[in-house]
């Protein structure tokens, strides 16, 4: 059965000549409608391995395209273009260009894990979505997501002090994501704090933000976590050939300057 599914034809692949006469026959306008063939010119054969090297992507090779993930997906119910099954196919076949067309959609996964429970092959599609969003960031296709920046701020503080000081986390997060400190909800919270005056909590917060307490004897534990994180990040950079790509880009930049 041939597939004539209009939604699979992209706008930019449809050409129509306003004025066209062929052999004396006027075929202007929609009579000259022509669909440009879509041609795959190259596969990135490393793509599946790159995604598999990132946390969550380990089981992508198990997929047999049944579509259970897309069927159960909460985001797909709102946006039919949000299609994990399709992206897993693109990744496994190495169609990087096609995948990048959806880079503004992929990160929208809400991690509800419905797909995880529906998948008959234990692909862990939610993990694959996370790994793919991470891959897009590492390769520079999308900026760091706010949640990623928050995770970084949070982790830095844990590694440094062994504690979380909310005020500081919030200030740094808002600063790094270029958001004003005077958020509406913060103002509201401040008002409520003033009217209710939870003195004990306010004192604690005040002391905390001035003294920046540390967990006693934390330095060794902090160093160990830092070391593990560095190891993991180095592993991911290596899997994605990031250092090589950066070096190539720098070389190009210097040759352009000369």
């Amino acid at each position, binding site marked *: 059965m041939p597939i004539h*599914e209009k939604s699979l034809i992209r706008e930019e692949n449809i050409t129509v000549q306003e004025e066209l006469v062929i052999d004396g026959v006027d075929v202007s306008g929609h009579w000259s409608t022509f669909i440009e063939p879509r041609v795959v010119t190259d596969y990135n054969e490393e793509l599946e391995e790159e995604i598999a090297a990132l946390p969550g992507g380990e089981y992508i090779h198990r997929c047999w395209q049944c579509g259970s993930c897309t*069927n159960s997906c909460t985001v797909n119910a709102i946006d039919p273009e949000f299609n994990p099954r399709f992206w897993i196919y693109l990744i496994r076949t190495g169609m990087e260009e096609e995948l990048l067309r959806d880079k503004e959609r992929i990160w929208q996964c809400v991690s509800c894990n419905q797909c995880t429970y529906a998948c008959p092959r234990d692909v862990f599609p939610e993990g694959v979505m996370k790994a793919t969003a991470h891959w897009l960031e590492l390769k520079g296709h999308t900026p760091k997501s706010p949640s990623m920046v928050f995770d970084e701020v949070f982790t830095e503080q844990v590694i440094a002090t062994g504690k979380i000081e909310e005020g500081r986390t919030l200030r740094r997060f808002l600063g790094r994501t270029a958001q004003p400190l005077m958020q509406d909800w913060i103002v509201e919270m401040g008002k409520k704090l003033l009217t209710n005056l939870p003195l004990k909590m306010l004192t604690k917060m005040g002391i905390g933000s001035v003294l920046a307490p540390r967990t006693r004897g934390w330095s060794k534990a902090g160093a160990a976590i830092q070391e593990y994180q560095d190891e993991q990040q180095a592993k991911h950079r290596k899997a994605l050939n990031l250092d090589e790509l950066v070096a190539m880009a720098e070389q190009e930049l210097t040759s352009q300057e000369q």
Partner: protein
Amino acid sequence: MTKPILVVGAGPAGLAATHALAAVGQPSILVEKEDTLGGAPILSGYARLVPSDEWAKDAIGRMVERSVQSPLVDVREGTRITEFSGQPGNFSAKLSSGDQIEVGSAVLCTGFTHFDSVNKPEWGFGTYEDVVTTTQVEQMISSGKGVRCPSDGRKPSRVAILLCVGSRDRQIGREWCSKICCTVSSNIAMEIREELPDCHVYIYYMDIRTFGLYETKYYWRSQEEFKVKYIKSRIAEVTSDGERLIVKGEDTLVKRPITIPFDMVVHAIGMDPNVDNKNLAEVFGIDLEVNGFIDRGNSYGNMGETSRPGVFVAGAATGPETIDDSISQATAAAMAALAQVHTPDAAAAG
């Protein structure tokens, strides 16, 4: 006079084994837990068999007749084995009837259990009357009443068959392919189209495995002659709008969501290990493989070996199997069991 051979289970495999033994003059004892002989094709009321197109009650009925009438086959219906001990050539078994029998070797033809669709609640079986299993459709056809919606007896105008129900699914611990459901479903689809030419039949699949010669006879023929439609999609859920069943999923080839009304949804249910396998393994002192089917020993020397010398196995007891192959395996296992009784030294060399 050598000791008889014990055959457990009177389905296609067990009936083939006793026939093979009787054909060479070897006495056997056929023990069947049910009161009716014939196994799944008879007990579950199958209609026309694949690939012969013969009615199950004719084809399997003949096999039953043959064994019952043979003076060399001692048939014990409604009976189970409760104890089994001894050495190859010299086993002793206790039956639930209280009898004690002495046998030279044993062939287990204990078959499988149909998957219970209640274990996949999202597909509506047990919730909606018009969601049925392939076994139920077989019964509708074999009873002569025809394919009708159980809720009100109307003729369905749209039927969906869902493949891999209880097969190839890690979520419910059933990773195996049940081997026969694709072919059986194509066959059922053609039978529905034959009886109800105005009824549209859709098959929802992940992969189609109508292996070997079944490809032309079932997969191709169902499309070319019977216009059965195959959609590559694993269905998300079966619900109802109060009047008809609503099937939801994604047509993966065209990347489009599906929400389609149907009169009847058929689950192509798979083959589970026999629910009695744990008990059988304990009584006979044999191993089960990782999924719970009876484990095979050496597959290249003697056919049908289990982990215990002198105890053989054939048919769907070892994993999903067709009727034809169950019969061939049982004939081969009967040969190995016979050798164990007659020429134990030669048999051991296998």
